[in-house]
């Protein structure tokens, strides 16, 4: 292959709950000529532990992730803003003043969130396709605020019929384990989001993070809504 070598860090949520997103990611990357490798010993980046303050557990998962990714070739592509931020930004804090500092530098510098990689890094002609559907886009918080992911979705969705989603940069209420620890609060925030999705006129909600997507999809399904919920890469690559 002549295209760039990439390492896919698929994330544990995609691996277990949304493997079609992983398959679509592989397809989308190969479509633009990438040579995709999958370091198969990978697990979880450690974010769930990090976000509830269980720092030793977070470090354990992060160390494993570093060992799996270090020494491989090319960009580490992650179909999740949130997990990409974890590796690219928060590992530094986890391993400050330890003998892993150099390793963190090496690995975190290679991490790219998927849409960032396709649009900014490759300048690829990848575009989302959704025949006969009307899409709305939800900006996932960590990608938006910590990686500055904003224009990437506009580029990728330019050929789709897209409607405005009110409050599209507001949190969906997921917040990781927050959704389980404080269900009433998480649900109330989610309900606002779902109301706005239903009011947008879209029949398909798109985002770049599976975590938000399973939250929104699970909530819509409980309401009996027919609105489809998809990761943006599912409209770019073939995940079937």
């Amino acid at each position: 292959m002549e295209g760039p070598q990439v390492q896919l860090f698929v994330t544990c949520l995609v691996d277990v709950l949304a493997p079609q997103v992983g398959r679509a990611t592989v397809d989308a990357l190969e479509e633009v000529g990438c040579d995709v490798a999958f370091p198969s010993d990978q697990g979880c980046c450690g974010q769930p532990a990090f976000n509830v303050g269980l720092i030793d557990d977070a470090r354990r998962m992060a160390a494993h992730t570093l060992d799996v990714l270090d020494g491989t070739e090319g960009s580490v592509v992650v179909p999740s803003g949130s997990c990409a931020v974890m590796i690219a930004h928060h590992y530094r804090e986890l391993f400050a003043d330890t003998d892993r500092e150099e390793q963190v530098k090496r690995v975190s510098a290679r991490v790219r969130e998927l849409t960032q990689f396709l649009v900014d890094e490759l300048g690829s002609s990848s575009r989302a396709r959704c025949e006969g559907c009307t899409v709305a886009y939800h900006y996932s918080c960590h990608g938006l605020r910590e990686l500055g992911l904003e224009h990437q979705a506009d580029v990728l969705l330019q050929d789709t019929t897209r409607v405005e989603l009110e409050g599209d940069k507001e949190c969906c209420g997921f917040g990781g384990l927050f959704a389980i620890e404080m269900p009433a609060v998480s649900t109330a925030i989610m309900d606002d989001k779902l109301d706005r999705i239903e009011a947008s006129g879209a029949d398909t909600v798109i985002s770049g993070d599976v975590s938000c997507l399973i939250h929104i999809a699970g909530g819509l399904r409980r309401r009996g809504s027919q609105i489809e919920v998809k990761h943006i890469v599912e409209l770019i690559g073939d995940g079937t």
Partner: protein
Amino acid sequence: MNQPVTFLGRAEALIGTHEADAVDNGVRNFLELREKAVEELPALADLRDRARAIRLHALRHLDRLLAHFADQLQAAGGHVHWAVDAADARQIAADILQRTESRLVVKSKSMVSEEIELNDHLEALGLEVVETDLGEFIAQLAGDTPSHIIAPVLHMTRQDIGKLFADELGVPYTDDPFELNRIARVHLREAFLLADAGISGVNMAVAESGSIVLVTNEGNGRLVTTAPRVHIALMGMERIVSRWEDAAVVLETLARSATGQRLSVYTNVITGPRQDDDPDGPEELHVIVIDNGRSQILAGETAEILACIRCGACLNACPVFRTAGGHAYGTPYSGPFGSIVTPGLHGMDPWWDLPFASTLCGACEEVCPVRIQIPKMLLQLRRQAASEGRLPGWLEKGIARYARTTVEPARWERAKRWASRLAGVIATDGWIRRMPGPGRGWTSSRDLPRPAKESFHDWWRSNRGS
């Protein structure tokens, strides 16, 4: 107060109520106004950087700035008192009021006075205390606590207030804001004229001139600090900048972030009590500089929260605050800022759960005029709570097991297979509708996609063979 001891308990009691709706409407209005102000002034981004540098500089040199401030204030004829904790601050205020034979006290808005629970203390000593900030006046009349640092009765609608005025002040019901304002003004005017002492907060002290700055939108702060014989200003120890040049930058960002105003309607600068050639002003000015846990915060990993200039923008931007409202936090300091400062001031017991009342969405940091790294500090406090063993057992054990499992590929594979098999039993159409144990928290309102029959790992192995 008889209220649930956890954030979740208090929030559950509030979510979906009329009060929560009022909060949501109110904060969205603030956010819109702020947005316009941000668009109007592209230089605000630079001003925020400068405001941050100014505030962090002040925190680093706090001892020196406070000493300089005290010297300058004393030179201008004012008195400075240092209060170690809330009891100390209450005692100092009470002593001043008793020595000056004060009976009636008017107050302009001071969150520090809420922090040290001053009103109750003074009333127990037989003093009459009248809140004169419109919001605080309403809260006092309703026997309620403020729910937002700059908009104390954000949780009430004008209809609620109309009804309250009719019930408590014996006026005909109206929900016209101008009329409600007029009623409050008439009611308060007498108190201003008769009051022996005025108590205010301090938005900012300026060390170089020994001045205190008060910002208000109603002008009540001006009356409170000039009409009575005695003025007592309650100041959080960290609310200081070194120079007027710095104060100007902070003021530029404060009102814009809070209400979208370029500047609050009244910006009062007070340097000492009435001087010989002043037409009015108090005979005595006392500034009580209050520590009450701030030194401890300053020495720890959340010191940066003391850079806060109390605009309330992080409350407005926070989805959790918008949903549950300020009363869910159980303290005068609510929202993301309150979740950091409250455990710092009053300890982790029982406030350790406040830092967990966040989705970590980062909207707070995005709007903070001094760019305080709020999510980072929420995480810091979560770490502290976890290291003190405060997390629920299921969470601690569950995460530990997840960590052990996912770092061992063979074990992780087995776990995924087991989860998939279990899902085969409890899922229908690829979704799980009800989960046992803590998972109930999720399925109380959401379905969960089932763990896939073929994980991505499985697919890769079958199709790409490595």
